[in-house]
């Protein structure tokens, strides 16, 4: 009996995910985000997939704890999908749906890898949502966000600097802090500060001098991150900086300068730091270093190769052979047990999410908020590229998480806050607050924006 279910559910899961992906792209094409039938279909697919995934886990393991966990997860997802639109009527449904989808897949995969971690992750997700729910409200109330430019910048530098000096080592990088048993990775939260700093600094003035000033702050943050051996975050900060400056100035010269600077800096880092060299050598020929440097990557490639198109089935593979699988290589474990087709759909869902964010950014005519939405979108999609590209050895490993799916409180909370910042700005936009030519001009004037 169990054999039938696991074999058939492989295909069921993949089909659900493919249909879901199609829904995501259809929602992108629509003029507005108010196509209810589509969201109902998306939700049905989400819950159907959750049912199949957890049914599989429970049947194959024969352990009832998965059934309990399933109920908890469904309650959360249902609450999130129902509650948020009630609190904020104008919420962007596609973004909310995708967030729930990713969280659902993440909790399922983590519970397969380590049940205890999944329970912790569940609590973190709950906490994150609780905090995030206030964000759209706060955004509409707080008026001085644009004025805190240098505070964002300095706090960011100081926090990263403090971690560099007094932080703890995690997997060889000095990037974490522990307070009462809870480990934080502050660089995650500083991401938000960087975006706010750039948006505040560049929304009005984009002179060369102003860009140079921001370069000092952003550069310091990147250098501190490289020194802490947090290469992934350093790259994400750098990419976000270059792209936000590009949009703010509308000057392709900065994009070229950024690309050139990035190449020079990467080469310098390669020559100067041994841990960078290790990653590059392991990337160029992981098989030659299979016993040491290349171990993690080759194990990840084994997982993806063994999983093939439809996967080995939940609990049928051996994803724990990959080091740090629940954080840096969660995509590989998804491919191994749920299949590469599922993995590709997952990437496409995330890409559609990125496009949705870009679509929102285009609609906003308040520069400050536009830069924030755009910056968050770039950070998010670039991080996905780093973690997936590293896992399949397209690029050297950087050791960053797959937001919402990987285990990790800081990553999950930061990404959720980012998503709700976008939601907040979107809600403003729907109410006419951020539009250059809005219906509610009075509110525009009250907020003191635009010409």
């Amino acid at each position: 009996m169990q054999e039938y279910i696991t074999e058939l559910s492989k295909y069921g899961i993949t089909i659900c995910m493919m249909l879901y992906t199609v829904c995501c792209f259809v929602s992108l094409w629509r003029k507005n985000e108010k196509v209810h039938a589509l969201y109902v279909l998306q939700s049905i697919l989400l819950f159907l997939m959750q049912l199949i995934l957890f049914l599989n886990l429970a049947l194959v393991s024969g352990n009832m704890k998965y059934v309990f966990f399933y109920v908890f997860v469904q309650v959360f997802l249902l609450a999130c999908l129902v509650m948020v639109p009630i609190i904020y009527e104008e919420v962007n449904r596609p973004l909310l749906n995708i967030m729930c989808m990713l969280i659902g897949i993440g909790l399922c995969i983590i519970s397969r890898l380590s049940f205890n971690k999944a329970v912790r992750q569940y609590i973190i997700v709950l906490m994150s949502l609780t905090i995030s729910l206030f964000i759209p409200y706060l955004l509409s109330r707080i008026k001085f966000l644009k004025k805190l430019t240098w505070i964002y910048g300095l706090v960011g530098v100081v926090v990263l600097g403090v971690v560099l000096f007094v932080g703890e080592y995690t997997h060889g990088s000095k990037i974490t802090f522990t307070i009462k048993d809870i480990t934080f990775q502050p660089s995650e939260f500083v991401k938000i500060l960087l975006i706010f700093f750039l948006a505040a600094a560049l929304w009005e003035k984009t002179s060369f001098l102003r860009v140079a000033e921001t370069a000092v702050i952003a550069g310091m943050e990147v250098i501190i991150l490289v020194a802490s051996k947090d290469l992934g975050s350093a790259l994400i900060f750098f990419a976000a900086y270059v792209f936000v400056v590009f949009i703010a100035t509308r000057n392709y010269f900065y994009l070229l300068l950024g690309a050139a600077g990035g190449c020079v800096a990467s080469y310098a880092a390669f020559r100067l730091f041994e841990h960078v060299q290790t990653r590059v050598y392991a990337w160029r020929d992981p098989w030659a270093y299979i016993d040491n440097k290349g171990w993690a990557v080759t194990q990840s490639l084994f997982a993806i190769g063994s999983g093939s198109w439809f996967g080995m089935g939940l609990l049928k593979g051996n994803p724990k052979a990959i080091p740090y699988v629940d954080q840096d290589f969660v995509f590989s474990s998804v491919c191994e047990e749920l299949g590469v087709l599922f993995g590709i759909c997952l990437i496409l869902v995330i890409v559609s999410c990125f496009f949705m964010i870009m679509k929102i950014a285009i609609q906003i005519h308040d520069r400050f908020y536009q830069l924030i939405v755009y910056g968050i979108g770039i950070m998010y999609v670039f991080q996905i590229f780093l973690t997936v590209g590293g896992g399949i050895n397209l690029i050297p490993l950087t050791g960053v998480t797959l937001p919402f799916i990987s285990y990790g409180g800081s990553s999950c909370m930061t990404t959720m806050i980012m998503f709700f910042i976008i939601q907040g700005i979107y809600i403003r936009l729907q109410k006419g607050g951020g539009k250059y030519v809005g219906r509610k001009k009075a509110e525009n004037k009250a907020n003191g924006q635009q010409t």
Partner: protein
Amino acid sequence: MEERKQKTRRMDSKPEIIISGCFFLIIFALLIGYLVYFVSTSEQDMINNSYNSRQEILLSQNYRGSIFSRDGDVLAETQMDAGQNETRIYPYKNLFSHIVGYSTQGRMGVEALANYYLINTNTSLNNKVVNDMAGVKNPGDNVYTTLDVEIQQVADEQLSIYKGAVIVTEVKTGKVLALVSHPDFDPNEINDIWDSLINNDSSSVLVNRATQGLYPPGSTFKIITALEYIRENPNTYNNYVFGCPGYFRFEDSKINCYHGSSHGQVNFEKSFAKSCNSSFANIGMGLDRTAFADTLDDLLFNRKLPLTLTYAKSSVQVSEDISDDEMMQTSIGQGKTQITPIHLNMITCAIANKGLLMKPYVIDRVENDAGNVVKAFKPSGYGKLMEESEAEILKSLMISVVESGTASKLKGLSYTAAGKTGSAEYNNVKGDSHAWFTGFAPAEDPEVCVTIIVEGAGSGGDYAVPIARRIFDAYFREK
């Protein structure tokens, strides 16, 4: 005014946002493309890698499938005792030791090549459920090879106690019909004899000499020197004449004919048929070394072979920089040149097949336990190693070797054979030479290609050609 203008310009970043969106679209298209490429090309390699712990997962669910000859004889199978303990049985013992290989001390041969198929199962879902209920493993898929038991037996008997290798392939398909390497071993006892095989390195029993053995090609290399001469003198090669006194001298270097015999006045064909070293050293000295290096490149020297079996790379050094002495030695297949028997077999097959090389292969198809084909392998061409006209000329030269030259033991049979012998000297003491033969039959429409090396036996004409004859006989008798 200026400021307002700038502000309106800044207002709308739509094109820039769209451009960054497109940029990431391309990046992710590349990412997904690479992922698809990786999975579709590397799945088997990934599962076969011994560092991949997932093999054990498959082996705990399925037992290893069987390996069959092309006529359906069992070459390897897994037998189960009452306690579900598995034993790998090789009914032909030593006969297929290198080509079928073993699977318990690492893997070799077909056991290694087809490992992915053997440990995967495509049995029906119903069977899986029944087996699951009964608590027994699923049968792995079965692999049908291109190997022919009868020809393999003849080759093995004929090679007898000598060290060496025999390869028999189908010219038009690249199917490997037989592959023998001596000394051999009994894969049934591999676990017991493993330590002594590893420690007693001098006889290199575990080396598959047919694909990994590197030998001086000796006179068989004259096929290649002749090809280069024809390429450089397409209209006049037949006018070539040389008076052979039994040796050839160039400045301080001297080349002797085999056993110092003098061949007298020889033309191009006779030089080849009689395998006259002096004449070929003379031809070699007149060749354009850069063009020769290109020809060697065409023939896959110093390069990867289109071969899935584990093999060694043949090596040869020809360039403007080498000395005249080296050039003379190289032209007659001595010097630093080294070749594997399988490589020589591939070149011979290309000559027989109008210049087109078919990729050699051993796995014909994979079937599930019910006999349904899971995957079938088709013959595939690698490409032209030489022009058809060049192949035809070489073929006629190889016919003359049988008709009036060193392979006359193949003359006057029910089929017409063609080939080239070689006696590769491997040290300076006279008489110590490996016996080579590479050739095909029937010459009119070649079907089967045989390459033989007998280590330390003597001349190719005396020791390798008779083996080829028995193998050709067996092939045509079976037809």
